[in-house]
């Protein structure tokens, strides 16, 4: 079997195992009360990490490039309650423009 198909199969099985462990083992049973506050904060913590990595990380390096301007413009659009699709388009357009000027 080729390397590509090994990657497809192993990452597919591994990902489903990660996603399904909670739902299959704990499905339908409420979590203990003291964890309720914790799971509610997982969203903000993970989303903020995804924003930070997506804006500043290039592999294992932290860089400042056109994405900073794009995400900054998106933040302004969010502040003025722009719809999500517009926010995404603004981010992509500003980043692409910055890259075009940077050569």
């Amino acid at each position, binding site marked *: 079997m080729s*390397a*590509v198909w090994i*990657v*497809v199969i*192993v*990452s*597919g099985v*591994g*990902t*489903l195992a*990660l*996603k*399904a*462990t*909670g*739902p*299959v083992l*704990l*499905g*339908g*049973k409420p979590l203990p*009360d*003291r964890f309720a*506050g*914790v*799971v*509610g*904060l*997982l*969203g*903000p*913590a*993970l*989303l*903020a*990490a995804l*924003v*930070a*990595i*997506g804006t*500043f*990380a290039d*592999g*294992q390096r932290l860089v400042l490039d*056109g*994405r900073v301007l*794009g*995400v900054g413009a*998106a*933040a302004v659009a*969010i502040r003025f309650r722009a*719809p*999500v699709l517009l*926010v*995404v388009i603004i*981010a992509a357009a*500003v980043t*692409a*423009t910055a*890259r075009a000027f940077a050569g």
Partner: protein
Amino acid sequence: MAETSGDRGFREGAVAVVPMAVAVFGFGLSYGVLARAAGMGGVAPVVMSVTTFAGSAQFAAASVLQAGGAAATAALSAIMLNARYLPIGVTVAPWLEGGVWSRLLHAHLTVDESWVIAAEGTGRWNPRVLLAAGMGLWIAWILGTLGGVLFGNVIGDPTRLGLDAAFPALFLALLVPQLRSRERATEVAGLRIGAPPPAIAALLGAAIALALTPFAPAGVPIVAAGAACLIGLRGRR
């Protein structure tokens, strides 16, 4: 079964996911182009989008293969990037009805965006919204990948279009409404901080992720950032 999971249904989830599905379709196009260029062929990227269904992980695997990395390295980096789905799966688990197959389906359709759309606040999730949003994203991701591998030559290099910045912007738009809270201050280890708990968790999560990026393999910083939610741990009462 936990008692209530919100009033929204399948239809509300399907409507809410449309703007994100458009972005995911574009991201899928660029994945298809890059995966093909990385020598994955035309069929394997589409099969991977059906089965692995996780954007950043699939990009990582393709880039490892393109750089001439081993299959084990590529698969491991994809799995590590998806490690956050272990805690994410635990958060939705209490709200899933039905048997094992139904729960497996919901689990497979749980990705960052569907998880956020299905959140009802204060640690509750809506399984009908999760299913609808997840299906919309899944279809968009598969069709995007298919378009990318078929028409890659016409589309060219997608990073020129700034699509890589679309995702942090999308996650920021999803994050901001979650920062509101009834609590005005946070108590951590006896300290009282004058900001709501979600804002503190977000700042802490971003800081952890950035601090670890230069030292830890991709994916690990995001999972470690999840530990910021522990500031919400309540003592036994």
